[in-house]
């Protein structure tokens, strides 16, 4: 479960997040919408520990993680630009976190191959990011995040670079991933159709406040 407890974030005199309080139950696919620059990405960065809130607390499964480093939070993060590591092959991208955790090579290979199969990127394992299409990059970024076996997945407009046909396919992939890995997902999007297809819980950021919308 994700709990944001009176989170405020200011830059200079400007308040981006104003006393945000919300609880997202475990295994929920939450969709966050809002206008550009309203603080959606800032909220994700505070959740995964890349940014410290001006005030307030972040709790994951009841544990206060506000002062924990990003690596200690068990959160997978897929940013809007996907941020694949330049110069690392797809195999190395997916195996990045398990390798750092000291997973034995045999188990590491199995995990990488399993995820590659699941995401349909097995033939791409030896490719560099520059040689991947937008859809392939998005799958690699998701597989890389899931290889760390997170409990919570934060997605920042992950489908924005995909065309309409690929988007439908990606939506079903995300649904499958969330249920198969029993994940709590917070997905930022501008697309109402994407939100309608994916979200169990619909959130809207407005004037620094977070509101829960009732699903139509």
């Amino acid at each position, binding site marked *: 479960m994700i709990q944001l407890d009176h989170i405020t974030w200011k830059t200079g005199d400007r308040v981006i997040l104003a006393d945000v309080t919300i609880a997202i139950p475990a295994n929920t696919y939450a969709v966050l919408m809002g206008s550009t620059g309203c603080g959606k990405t800032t909220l994700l960065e505070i959740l995964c520990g890349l940014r410290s809130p001006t005030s307030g607390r972040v709790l994951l499964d009841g544990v206060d993680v506000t002062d924990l*480093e990003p*690596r200690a939070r068990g959160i997978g*993060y897929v940013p809007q630009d996907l*941020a694949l*590591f330049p110069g690392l092959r797809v195999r190395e991208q997916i195996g*990045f976190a398990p390798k750092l*955790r000291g997973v034995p090579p045999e188990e590491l290979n199995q995990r990488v191959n399993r995820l590659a199969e699941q995401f349909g990127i097995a033939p791409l394992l030896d490719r560099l990011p520059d040689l991947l299409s937008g859809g392939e990059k998005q799958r690699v970024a998701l597989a890389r*995040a899931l290889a760390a076996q997170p409990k919570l997945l934060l997605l920042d407009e992950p489908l924005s670079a995909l065309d309409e046909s690929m988007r439908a396919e990606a939506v079903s992939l995300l649904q499958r991933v969330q249920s198969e890995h029993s994940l709590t997902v917070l997905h930022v999007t501008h697309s109402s159709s994407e939100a309608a297809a994916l979200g169990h819980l619909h959130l809207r950021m407005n004037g620094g406040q977070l509101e829960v919308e009732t699903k139509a």
Partner: protein
Amino acid sequence: MTFNRSNLCWLALGLITAGYLLFWALLLGATATYSTPESWLQVLMSPEIRHATWLSLVTCSLAAGFALLLAVPVGYLMSRREFCGKSWLDAALDIPIILPPLVVGLCLLIFFQTRIGKAIEMAIPFTYQLSGVVLAQFVVAAAFAIRTMRGTFQHLSARPEDVALTLCCTRFQALWHVALPAARRGMVAAFCIAWARSLGEFGPILVFAGATRMKTEVLPTTVWLELSVGNLEAAVAVSLFMVALAVLVLVAVRATGEKV
């Protein structure tokens, strides 16, 4: 092709560029035709020049290597972190670039006469030693390497490093596993620029390490030594050799920029 105002502008800019290149071509041409290739070869094969060449290659490589080791962490810090007094530190890092070279040498010489400097020299002697040549080259070359690495990291998105932090990485591991592989072109360029700068270093070496033949004599010192005894042919031969080395470094920088 219609000859409009825009074309006239490009033509004028092209003429300015061509004029500048022509000026350099004339300078190098005049120097190259001053003596014959046979006499260049004769000069370059003399034991003193060969020793100075070897010494230049070794000291420049060491200085550039040390400069890169310093430039990577400093460049990363300056490009990724905002802190109080950053603009002052930024300016301070460029001081070796704007200081007159002789002043750099004088500063080094005076520093190693202080108590701290003498304590350092108890462990590693620098003044009028080979290590002093490397230090004098390093002091100036490092500033150029830092500037290059800072620019390199500024052009790289910090986002992959942020993602790495969520994937079990410490900040140091994110630098090592993500930022450095991405910055490899910049690292090669920083090394080459530091190397080329070290090759041309003269003032600080002369003041701090001296110009002792077969000991602290590097190629720029050779040019000065040969000029001071009126041996213009030898000075020209060594100068042209240095030009050739500089061109090789430029080509290497261009090639690595495209291929690494």
